[in-house]
């Protein structure tokens, strides 16, 4: 059974906050749920399916469903790190198609900034995995693991820091129009490559922001979607993949999108060349580059040339991406950027992005998330969305 056309995203909301020490993480979850419901024109009692990931406190769905006092008949806590929410949309579409729920709420929220969590510190998520006893002595922070992917990409394909910098430049060109963006200032390639190394070859400006905040989407069946007063954003295809360390058979030149991307495009029946807007997980510049290649927007190794000279800038290049400024410039709530990629893609498909960055005739979007560690075990989830 395909999910093609079986479900629509009818509500999408990102919390405007970037710093919320006065609010709890569950409160932020509830606030983004309220925002998405208001956006959809639905009410809390309409929700009968709920999805959350590791950013949800306590026992995930049990704690959050209780906190919000939801009455659901379907729940899912698939945890693929920051890519979880794309998989949740896909799983919600599957559940809706199977008759398990009608209106699914997906939430993400957290306070990485006020809690002082950052990509230069060792990551602690849940209980230690079997790899911890082998990896933890080497202090795999987030940044140095992604930096090793960048180093290997440069070695194999001649990718340059200048090329990676274009990804940040494009994000900053978009962020200037987002009043909530943490980094609204436009930056140049020179500014990126002259910013200090955090873990070489990645500079400070190759990194995303650390922010508080969150987001939510609501997924529902076609009949309900058509009864609402919002533009129709259809789920056309989805794919997911987990890439690990292969028992030591390590190849850092590709990511899970090499698997999840083609699955999603095949289900949707479209090609990368058909895509008008791309929401690409941007924890670091290198993350974007590898997904673009692996999703098939360019050949493997050609990502550096593809992103250069403003090719990702709306109104300038061929593949506008992350027009809210993305995680590189706007927000990265709970150190998880998947939800905000979906939310901005929905805005684009509805024609509700900022006029300065709105893509003309934006009828088809691809969104990809990478969660976990790009250089080790990570999840990749792809969505293809269509404006009907």
């Amino acid at each position, binding site marked *: 059974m395909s999910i093609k056309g079986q479900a629509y995203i009818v509500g999408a909301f990102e919390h405007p906050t970037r710093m919320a020490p006065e609010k709890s993480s569950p409160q932020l979850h509830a606030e983004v749920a309220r925002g998405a419901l208001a956006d959809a024109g639905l009410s809390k009692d309409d929700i009968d399916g709920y999805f959350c990931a590791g950013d949800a406190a306590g026992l995930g769905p049990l704690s959050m469903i209780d906190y919000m006092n939801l009455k659901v008949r379907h729940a899912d806590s698939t945890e693929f790190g920051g890519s979880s929410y794309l998989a949740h949309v896909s799983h919600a579409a599957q559940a809706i198609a199977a008759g398990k729920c009608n209106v699914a709420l997906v939430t993400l929220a957290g306070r990485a900034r006020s809690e002082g969590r950052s990509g230069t510190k060792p990551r602690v998520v849940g209980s230690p995995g079997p790899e*911890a006893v*082998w*990896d933890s002595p080497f202090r*795999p922070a987030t940044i140095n*693991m992604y930096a090793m992917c960048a180093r290997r990409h440069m070695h194999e394909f001649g990718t340059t820091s200048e090329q990676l910098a274009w990804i940040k430049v494009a994000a900053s060109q978009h962020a200037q129009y987002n009043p909530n963006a943490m980094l609204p200032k436009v930056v140049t390639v020179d500014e990126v490559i002259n910013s200090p190394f*955090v873990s070489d070859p990645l500079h400070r400006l190759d990194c995303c922001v650390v922010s508080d905040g969150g987001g939510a989407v609501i997924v529902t069946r076609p009949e309900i979607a058509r009864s609402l007063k919002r533009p129709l954003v259809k789920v056309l295809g989805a794919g997911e993949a987990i890439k690990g360390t292969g028992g030591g058979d390590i190849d850092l030149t590709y990511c899970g999108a090499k698997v999840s991307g083609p699955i999603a495009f095949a289900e949707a029946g479209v090609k990368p060349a058909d895509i008008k807007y791309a929401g690409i997980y941007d924890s670091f510049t290198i993350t974007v580059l590898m997904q673009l290649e692996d999703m098939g927007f360019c050949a493997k190794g050609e990502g550096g040339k593809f992103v250069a000279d403003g090719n990702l800038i709306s109104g300038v290049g061929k593949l506008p991406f992350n027009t809210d400024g993305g995680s590189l410039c706007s927000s990265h709530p709970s150190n998880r950027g998947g939800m905000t990629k979906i939310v901005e893609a929905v805005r684009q498909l509805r024609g509700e992005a900022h006029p300065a960055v709105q893509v003309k005739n934006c009828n088809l979007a691809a969104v990809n998330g990478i969660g976990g560690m790009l250089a*080790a075990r990570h999840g990749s989830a792809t969505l293809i969305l269509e404006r009907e």
Partner: protein
Amino acid sequence: MTTSTIPGPDVNDPIAKEFYAAAATGKFLVRKCTACTRAHWYPRAVCPFCFSDKTEWAEGSGKARIYSHSTMASKADPFTIAYVTLAEGPTMLTHIVDAGEVHIGMDVALTFRQADNGVAIPMFAPVK
């Protein structure tokens, strides 16, 4: 580049206990499968390639080559994380120590460093 502090691993896993007990005596063990003959990393009781439970320890040569690396730009606490490909086949996460310039393809050799809880940790240094 030196490693100033090494967080000691919490060694509860039975396979890890054997590995780190050998490391304490200066031995670097690599886990091999007798069914498919391949070595893997990190060590497991069940082979991650053929799923056989016929895995055993072999003493590693300690020879490796740098696959990728990155140095944290902290003046107080710089360290170089790396993936190195062992002569036995698998690639493992480690640190490069006692090195000036580091590059992909560089030959490195095993050296143990003590973690803050006394556990001996396998790291690699350039072959002089």
